[in-house]
């Protein structure tokens, strides 16, 4: 047994802050109990982790904070199952277990100098936010940034408190849309892919990063192809049922690809190679 314990031993972290994003989604900021780890928990945008609520279980959640902002980690959870429901009951001061970071990440090195097109839907914005804030913290490394973010209703939009920060960032444009507006909504209405088609961002020296519900991905990928984005320059992160996160429990394979090891970030070109079982 290595001194850090076996592969499945989580590290303890204390909930520092809970933000209610929507009626069923919360963002948790956690601080590692172990002092050195608090500062040096190295991770990349796009990676995921197994969050434990002891007595209930573990949930696979991506890191939504950017590694450029050290001292804490953030993850968002939609209330769908036993563990996420238990998470939603937690208040600051409670302890959770963290295993990770796991999986690959958005290739932020390779994206340097490129224009970035973010296309997010609902809770799918969580992994994109990690990369977006990473790029905004190193703004000069990247070209023009377009952000398309949509949700079913205005009440389903997450991270609303960072919208201004995103809008006012240099050479960055934020397009918000909702499937159904309400009386106070003045922005765009309609599904995200439609707005991407309408605005038609240029694919020249550009990369698209998208994540959202399967239905949105299904209609966004063809739009990006029509706009001229080559398959290798479209990145998405797959939501598969994962359990161990380290390639042992046999749960997250698509063909012989293990999403927890070879993903969760894939290019559209890679997705096309995978058997249609995700």
């Amino acid at each position, binding site marked *: 047994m290595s001194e850090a314990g076996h592969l*499945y*031993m989580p590290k*303890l972290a204390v909930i520092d802050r809970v933000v209610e994003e929507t009626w069923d989604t919360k963002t948790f900021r956690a601080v590692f109990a172990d002092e050195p780890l608090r500062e040096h928990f190295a991770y990349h945008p796009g990676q995921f982790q197994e969050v434990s609520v002891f007595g209930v279980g573990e949930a696979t959640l991506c890191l939504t904070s950017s590694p450029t902002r050290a001292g804490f980690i953030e993850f968002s959870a939609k209330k769908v199952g036993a563990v996420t429901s238990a998470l939603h009951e937690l208040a600051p001061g409670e302890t959770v277990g963290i295993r990770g970071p796991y999986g690959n990440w958005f290739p932020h090195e390779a994206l340097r100098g490129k224009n970035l097109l973010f296309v997010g839907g609902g809770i799918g914005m969580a992994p994109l936010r990690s990369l977006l804030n990473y790029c905004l913290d190193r703004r000069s490394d990247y070209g023009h940034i377009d952000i398309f973010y949509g949700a079913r209703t205005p009440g389903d939009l997450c991270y609303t408190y960072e919208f201004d920060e995103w809008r006012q960032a240099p050479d960055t444009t934020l397009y918000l849309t909702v499937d159904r507006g309400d009386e106070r909504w003045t922005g765009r209405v309609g599904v995200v892919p439609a707005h991407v088609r309408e605005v038609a961002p240029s694919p020249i020296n550009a990369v698209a990063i998208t994540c959202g519900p399967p239905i949105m991905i299904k209609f966004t990928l063809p739009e990006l192809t029509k706009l001229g984005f080559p398959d290798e320059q479209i990145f998405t992160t797959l939501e598969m049922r994962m359990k161990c996160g380290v390639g042992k429990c046999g749960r997250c394979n*698509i063909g012989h690809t293990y999403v927890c090891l070879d993903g969760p970030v894939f290019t559209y070109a890679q997705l096309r190679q995978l058997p249609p079982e995700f």
Partner: protein
Amino acid sequence: MGAAILRKSDVMPWVRGLLASYRVVAPMVEGEGTIRYRSLTSEASVVLDGRRPLRSPKEHFLPQVEPLLTFRGTGTALAVAPPAKSDSATVILGVRPCDARALARLDDVFLGRKDMDSIYGDRRKAAILVGLACATPSWGCFCTSVGGSPAGTEGLDLLLTDFGDHYHVAVLSEAGRALVATPAFGPATDADAALAEERHAAAIARMPALFDAEAVAGKVEWEAPVWMRHARRCLACGACSFLCPTCHCFDIQDEVTAEGGVRFRCWDTCQFGEFTRMGAGHNPRPTQTERLRQRVSHKFKYLVEEFGRMGCTGCGRCVEACPVNIDIRSVLAEIEGGER
């Protein structure tokens, strides 16, 4: 590496001697006559004859349920502890060649793929495997069709061959030699070695290969009527996977106890519906057709692509356990023969 002779009457004295410095795990009869590998106490009755047991030594390295950690307290006072160490030297008796080969497949995943699982790894390092060659195959056996043999030595430290009132003991490793260095063992002559060879050949002759597994690996296709044809009668129970010595999928869950709680891992199977069901209900493998395709492709295609060797050693337990007679040998023969 040499050989020895062990009279059957000397087996239990030898085993009692082993208990002084090893934990001994051996096949023992339970309930209605089914055999299970259990940790031995001195007066237990070991079953070393008969056919390959329905349960395998996999259970020692990857038990059906084992604690990963315990926890107590809440808030900032929550404390977590690792499970008891399980790396004490262990001798496992009566390991069939197909089960020893199966452990090598588990090694690929638990020791090889990316980070090592130290819980499994510690037990593997601490285990000495005493093999027992198969004289008569069980009705589901097909080890010879997947590159194995009833007298295979891969992964074993000793191989016993039944000579009636005594065993021929082939020494296959230094660890095995250490076990044989006791008065219970007598010298083996060249004639013994020849007789062992003869017995092995006879056992192999009883098991002609049913298909060429190498060919099958290349012919496993995504869209093929063989999946639906066999999977239609599958009832989605877990018998095939739980008894399979190379199936290793597990789930991790928590249980609250009086003192606090325990996180454990337990066997799971891709044949169960909720194995891949996601939070919002989407399930990439909704019916048994996808699940049979996953189970067969994983062992005969994906693992071949990743490790260069199949994830099946032909023990036949899935064939014998299936309540609706889904016979993986028929599935593979159909795949090899192409769709008739």
